[in-house]
């Protein structure tokens, strides 16, 4: 019984409850939020270290044995995802201190942020398919309220599309879980894995697998299911966009990787080929969507979609190296994309707009911020030696080794288009002279509160450093990713850890 496995639930839950209790105490809420986020990160690191040293960790809730009760399972992939969720929670918690308006703060923003983290961590750690559904619901409700909080008109419009499409996902997910229970008579993922290994009707299982693909695909934002994402990500306050960009789609990616390595490997000729094709289409349509935009956050939102393609490309190729590439890419992407959103927020902070036409002059006036933008932007485009390059390289190498030349060519070409669209932001927001000189009010706001400005930059610096570490010390991350991929490719280890020696 390792306490660090359940703390990723208890810490955000407690933090959220405490922030709700501190309804009228603003300083308290802020302190609780940052402390909770930090504790989550610390525990996640502890968990990862434990899994690395001692192998897959399992905890049966209420001590009801698997497959009858709910189990929490941490393999390396889960643990890595929890760590990165912790990092993002911490970065965004700090960033929120400066950017979040008082109104939203007093209407439960911090509680919702930690509820969201609760749902995310639960989804990463659960070993039960229905329980995964529950965490999805927690996440969905928390993110929906975060999105709608404030009730501004564009927010509501985005929120409605967001919630409708995600409810479709939930419905499909639930239907698929029900059908699967009908076929296999169990909900525990390890148990399911065992029973689906030699199914009575492989085609039926594959049919159900496709329902999961669509349900999780909606969450992950793959082609052609991503519509909710560009419709909503640019509407809430930037800290909310940032945490969404960091985690929401990635839970979908996580779930896809989990079920299509553990449960649905009966007919990879169909399932994983479909995934690979969708990966390519996701990359292309996402990046073209980004090229068509002229607003900082909209561009970034479409890039998320494009990059999701890379994350599931490794799943489609389905080799150890490819999955390691997917995992590496996912981690890299979370850091980089969140950071870009944070930078967009600073641009908004000093110039009061996200519109590229109205932005300008950041390079001249904020050289530090400019170079902090370049690091994640170039990394996103895959410029070496930053993190994105190694992610892309691992995937490309794995793709070539499996002779999947088309997807590799697509991935490389989309990298070029990504660079194009990052330079667009650079040229417009940073290099171009501002259309009109920044008003006195903006300048005063930016420079009058230098402390706030540096507090605002601190999470950006943290994430930029991580990007550099993922590049220069790519080996360390890759070794862990490869080991995680090995666990995914050989589910026996997972099944044994959960069910004991029953196999």
């Amino acid at each position, binding site marked *: 019984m390792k306490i660090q496995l359940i703390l990723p639930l208890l810490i955000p839950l407690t933090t959220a409850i405490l922030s709700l209790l501190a309804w009228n105490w603003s300083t308290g809420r802020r302190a609780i939020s940052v402390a909770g986020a930090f504790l989550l990160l610390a525990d996640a690191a502890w968990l990862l270290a434990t899994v690395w040293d001692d192998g897959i960790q399992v905890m049966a809730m209420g001590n009801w044995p698997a497959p009858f009760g709910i189990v929490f399972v941490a393999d390396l992939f889960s643990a890595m995802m929890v760590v990165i969720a912790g990092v993002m929670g911490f970065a965004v918690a700090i960033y929120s201190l400066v950017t979040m308006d008082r109104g939203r703060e007093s209407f*439960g923003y911090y509680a919702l942020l930690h509820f969201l983290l609760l749902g995310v961590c639960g989804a990463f750690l659960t070993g039960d398919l229905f329980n995964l559904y529950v965490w999805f619901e927690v996440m969905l409700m928390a993110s929906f309220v975060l999105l709608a909080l404030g009730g501004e008109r564009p927010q509501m419009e985005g929120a409605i599309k967001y919630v409708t499409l995600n409810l479709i996902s939930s419905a499909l997910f639930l239907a698929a879980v029900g059908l699967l229970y009908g076929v296999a008579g169990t909900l525990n993922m390890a148990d399911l894995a065992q029973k689906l290994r030699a199914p009575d009707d492989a085609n039926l299982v594959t049919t159900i697998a496709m329902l999961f693909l669509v349900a999780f695909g909606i969450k992950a934002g793959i082609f052609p299911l991503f519509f909710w994402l560009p419709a909503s990500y640019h509407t809430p306050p930037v800290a909310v966009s940032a945490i969404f960009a960091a985690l929401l789609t990635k839970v979908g990616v996580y779930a896809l990787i989990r079920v299509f390595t553990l449960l649905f490997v009966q007919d990879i000729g169909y399932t994983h080929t479909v995934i690979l094709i969708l990966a390519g289409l996701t990359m292309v349509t996402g990046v073209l969507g980004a090229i068509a935009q002229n607003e900082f956050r909209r561009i970034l939102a479409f890039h998320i979609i494009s990059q999701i393609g890379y994350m599931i490309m490794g799943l489609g190729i389905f080799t150890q190296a490819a999955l390691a590439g997917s995992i590496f890419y996912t981690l890299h992407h979370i850091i980089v994309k969140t950071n870009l959103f944070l930078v967009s927020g600073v641009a908004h902070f000093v110039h009061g707009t996200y519109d590229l036409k109205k932005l300008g002059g950041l390079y001249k006036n904020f050289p530090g911020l400019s170079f902090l933008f370049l690091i994640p932007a170039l990394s996103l485009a895959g410029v070496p030696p930053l993190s994105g390059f190694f992610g892309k390289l691992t995937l490309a190498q794995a793709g070539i080794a499996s002779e999947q030349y088309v997807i590799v060519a697509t991935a490389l070409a989309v990298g070029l288009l990504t660079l194009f669209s990052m330079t667009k932001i650079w040229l417009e927001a940073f290099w171009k002279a501002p259309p009109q000189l920044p008003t006195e009010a903006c300048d005063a706001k930016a420079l009058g509160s230098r402390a706030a400005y540096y507090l605002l930059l601190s999470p950006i610096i943290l994430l930029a450093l991580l990007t550099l570490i993922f590049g220069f010390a790519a080996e360390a991350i890759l070794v862990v990713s490869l080991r995680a991929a090995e666990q995914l490719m050989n589910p026996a280890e997972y099944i044994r850890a959960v069910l004991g020696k029953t196999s």
Partner: protein
Amino acid sequence: MGLVSAVLSGFVLALIAPWIYRIARGATGWLLAIFPLALFAYFLSYIGAVAAGDVVRVSYPWVPSLGINLSFYLDGLSLLFAFLITGIGALVLIYTGGYLKDHSHLGRFYGFILFFMASMLGVVLADNTMGLFLFWELTSVSSFLLIGFEHEKESSRAAALQALLVTALGGMALLGGFLLLNQAVGSWEISELVRQGDAIRTHSLYIPIVLLVLAGAFTKSAQFPFHFWLPSAMEAPTPVSAYLHSATMVKAGVYLLARMTPALAETALWTGTVTAVGAVTMVFGAAIAFRQSDLKLILAYSTVSALGIMMMLLGVGTAGAVQAMVVFLFGHALYKGALFMLAGAIDHEAGTRDVNRLAGLRSAMPVSAAAGLLAALSMAAVPALFGFYGKELFYESLAEDYLMPVLLFASVLTSMIFVAVAVLAGIKPFIGETTSSAKQPHEAPISLWLGPVTLAATGLVLGLWPSMVDKSALLPAIHAVLWRPVFLELALWHGLNPIFLLSMATLASGSGLFIFRSRLLRLFSWLDALRDCGPRNGYSLALAGLNAAAQAQTRVLQSGYLRYYLLIVVATATVLSGYKLLQDIESLSFGRLFDVTFYEAAPALLILLAAFMATRVRSRLAAIAALGVVGFSVALVFVLFSAPDLAMTQFSIETLTVILFVLVFYHLPRFAILSSAWTRARDTFVALTAGGLITAIMLKASGVELHPKISTYYIENSVPLAHGHNIVNVILVEFRGLDTLGEITVLAIAAVGVYALLKFWPGKTETR
């Protein structure tokens, strides 16, 4: 370790350069120049060993999981480039101090140019292809930042973007090529690849490898049809043009192909492509250079042409051609660097770069005039200057093979234009009558003329005594490309052979071209019309096309209408799942569908009818009522299958939902049918298919042999272990208590959300 720190220390210096500038101000250029000079001296210390045939190789593991090492390799070819990079680099740093004196971003500029220098050294020293690619991309990035240095100018930004996109396109191809090379022979190390030449040439991936690597080299080295970015890049401050866009970076493609020659060359594909592309670029660049009047553009297009010469020689690939390439490359770096820096100095002092307006500066700028004369003579390949040897070997290598009369003819034509262009750019501004110009010209400060004078003087000294470099610096570079012993001795006087006569004829006719330039330009002015269908236009069209395609795609896909989104999502689910189900449609037995009792069929019928009603009625209230019937009928099903608690829940939820719906819908405008018959038919089709799919899956699933369900465990253990008689309750609070915790949390969040949405409006922020 020495090689690694030689490369990496440049990056460190680049990072701190802006702060050095804050302290050292005007002396920064001189101060920073010490760094490349020290590196120059460091590389000089290897010259003996390398000439003797030694190579230095160091390697440290970097990302062993991918097989990537931080490995560096120093042989004759690397060394020659290292000399150019560090030597010209030092002069450019000094030059920068004068040229951009007191520019507000000068500190950053130093940083960028040092960053470039370190990257470029990395390109020519890397042994690992991924290392080479890394530095290759960094040169593109630094080039981007430098071209866009005057970032508030629209044209600078466009030029920077253009250069970046073209070179990154090549970079992408190059990465692909390296990946395939690694797949083919299992190594990233160039020193290994060149040993595996035969294996690569016979590998099935050989053709894509060659094409991809060539695409990388051609874009970087501005070969036709990718050349257009280089003239555009003249938007950059002149030190950048002199350093990156003539002396070093644009030669990276030449370097790459020279480096890869042992691994990839000597096939018809390689020889044909490289030679042809090089030759076309050579003639094309020269022809356009001739009709330019902006000093920098003249030099830029002649650089394009010179790069074409080098490529063509590499393509021909004979011992003579490679000798000629190396000697020409060295000579070109010397005179072109000098001419570029002079162009900047003239612009700086006389206030214009238009050759038609520049004349008679010799008295005002005597030192610059001398440097210009020497550099121009070298470019024109006048004997006793170093440029002469490159040209001689160039002619010789083409003449030795009598199958190449076309190439030789094209080369002579190009060389004639070179003579004319050299006079135009290096001599014409200084001679003749002084024209009135905006500024009163005077001699440039030492920082501006030191560079050109040094380079031009080097061209003269080495022209007189070529033995100083031929065996020590040039021959090892030739060996590195050819991999077989050759002989090189540069001599001023070969006797009165046909090649020498051809050279003299070139000089004479080239001078003629200069004299009759304006008349010739008028004669060929009709060619100007062709300008609009050149590759530069292709670039603009491609960019516009990309943007248009992106817009169109996004308008269709991200239409903004929720109904289309839902339609696509449902259709996707149906197609992906249905495809598999259809494969064994025959195993579907519909018999079970009718194996029901009357009281089971009744609610089912009710549901169907109510659902149909909901879509057909013309009043919202009726539709809500119909949906309510669906809900209550579902609850009936629960009752029938002995789940009364579920049914109770369903009844209360349904009642509440209907009431809420009625309350809300009361405020909506009158019902109207906005959809056409066609869209309704389409939606019906999708809905029925999706419903049919779920039905079919259900039918199949219910026919599958069941594994023992986990529910038996709950039945058996509910009382003994959990002490509860209501199994559903026990499952909710015991066996699966965590689910319940999650659902409670969902409710709590929803409560917060409802409260906030009702109470909090950003308009009145301080509501608390």
